[in-house]
């Protein structure tokens, strides 16, 4: 009744199992190919297309004009501004969140979970509304300005400045930094820190030479998770920024929804994605090294 398990039969069973897995994955596979991979390739195709005099995209006369325009001073300025803002956002988040994550990770298990959930709830909830709240606070008759005036100062209007965008981005993306940092610090082997202290390392030395290097995967992961959305941010600058603070995100959107230059917008998107890809590769590289 029962057959001997021969290598051939086992291989056949393995094949059948693999085939079954493939069939279960098939709907997702097809969906992602049609609604993700094909659109991605279309953007690539469009970035080489040309434009008619009325602004319609012509899928002929393939050229590199859109890419050449990436090197113009206008794009350069917008790109530099975005890069600077993204880097500043990342740096602020890192400096503020490291001690924060350290604090959460060193609490007792119950308190730790409560503190974490309190970070995650705003993290996943409505981004638009959370950004809008700052528009309400930073406006010329907003709370910040009112407080300043109550103390006899000038009315402050931060809205529509780079500072407002920076505050909004730090606010919006901070949880991306907290969670990986927390994960890295939480699974740290505290015996190593104790050992350093036993060997007469000062608290600072133990932190700098043991804790910090061991939590480096979290630092890298958090920085990239903040950097990527900051670089492509659209909602935050659209709500809190002004006309003089155009960033990559709203510049790309403008090419599609108002300037109607789809090939150029596509080339910008490709450039943005290339940057993300580089950042993500750094992320996986550093992750792999620390497994």
């Amino acid at each position, binding site marked *: 009744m029962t057959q001997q398990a021969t290598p051939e039969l086992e291989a056949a069973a393995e094949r059948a199992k693999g085939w079954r897995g493939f069939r279960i994955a098939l*709907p*997702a*596979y097809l969906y992602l190919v049609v609604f993700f991979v094909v659109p991605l390739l279309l*953007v690539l195709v469009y970035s080489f297309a040309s434009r008619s005099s009325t602004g319609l995209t012509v899928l002929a006369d393939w050229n590199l004009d859109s890419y050449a325009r990436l090197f113009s001073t206008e794009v350069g300025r917008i790109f530099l501004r975005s890069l600077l803002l993204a880097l500043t956002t990342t740096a602020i988040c890192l400096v503020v969140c490291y001690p924060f994550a350290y*604090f959460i990770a060193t609490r007792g298990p119950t308190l730790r979970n409560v503190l974490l*959930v309190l970070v995650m709830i705003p993290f*996943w909830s409505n981004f638009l509304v959370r950004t809008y709240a700052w528009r309400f606070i930073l406006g010329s008759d907003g709370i910040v300005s009112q407080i300043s005036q109550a103390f006899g100062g000038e009315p402050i209007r931060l809205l529509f400045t780079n500072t407002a965008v920076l505050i909004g981005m730090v*606010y919006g993306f901070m949880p991306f930094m907290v969670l990986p940092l927390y994960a890295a610090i939480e699974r740290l082997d*505290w015996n190593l820190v104790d050992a350093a202290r036993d060997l007469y390392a000062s608290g600072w030395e133990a932190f700098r030479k043991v804790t910090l290097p061991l939590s480096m995967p979290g630092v890298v992961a958090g920085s990239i998770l903040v950097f990527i959305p900051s670089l492509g941010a659209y909602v935050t600058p659209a709500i809190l920024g002004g006309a003089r603070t155009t960033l990559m995100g709203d510049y790309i959107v403008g090419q599609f929804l108002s300037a109607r230059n789809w090939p150029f917008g596509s080339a910008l998107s490709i450039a943005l994605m290339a940057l993300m890809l580089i950042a993500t590769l750094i992320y996986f590289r550093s992750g792999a090294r620390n497994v």
Partner: protein
Amino acid sequence: MSEKGRRSPIDRLLAVNAWVIYVFFYAPIALLIVFSFNDNDNVSIWTEPSLRWYRAMLEDDRILGALRNSLIVAFASTIVATIIGTMLAIALERYRFRGHGALDGIAYMPIIIPDVTMGVMLLIFFFQAIGVIEEIFGATFRTGLGTITLAHIAFNISFVAIVVRARLAQFDNSLEEAASDLYASRWATFRRVTLPLIAPGVAGGALLALTLSLDDVVVTQFVSGQGSTTLPVYVFGLVRRGVTPLINAVSTVMLLASMLLVAFSLGLQRSRTRAVEEEDDLSDFVPGSSQGTKTG
């Protein structure tokens, strides 16, 4: 561990930093909620509490219409994404097959890629697809709730898959193997063993998908058509023009709804059924229990 228990100055500083951050997280939200109950026409001058703006919201046909659209899109995309995403999670976590690695990579791309690029991609795609459909079938097909739903499914599949996969990784497939050793059919194994075990993950993933769909502005803006605005896109348009007490009221409702959904979703993701806990205890003694570990 020696540092714990003692309240060193550094520890106190850490605590202060943490509370400042929590105030930073929640104060803007709290202010928005408080001022949505303000009677004054001027947003930032407090006069007296009233439900005036909530009444105005319930009488605004455009807001209600946009809300209706949002709910249709959210429920439709959540149902489809939950089914496909759960299947994807099971396939990636439990099976090895040709194209496994490629699918694993593609599956998480919609999460990593910025909203703007995802929107651009789908805008061009639907523009081209509509052209092709008209040429082949002669039927006119326009962007609207249909395209928005298709776009939301595209990013929600990935989020559902991540949540369900994390749940699946908590237990290895020895229970499923036991069921099939006892002559349970594959379907019976799935329905009686796998599904009950991953149910909290599936529900958590579905709630997350619902939240993300109800909150999405950027992708939706690119793929919506005339008269198919969702609530966030409509509010986004209003917000760009200025701050009004009415927006405060709508925002408060949107925010509280999404926070509630997120809290539920997190609760489900963190809940550990007794079956999983027992499984965890057993897993050390089950040969081949490392099967659930991820590659790379």
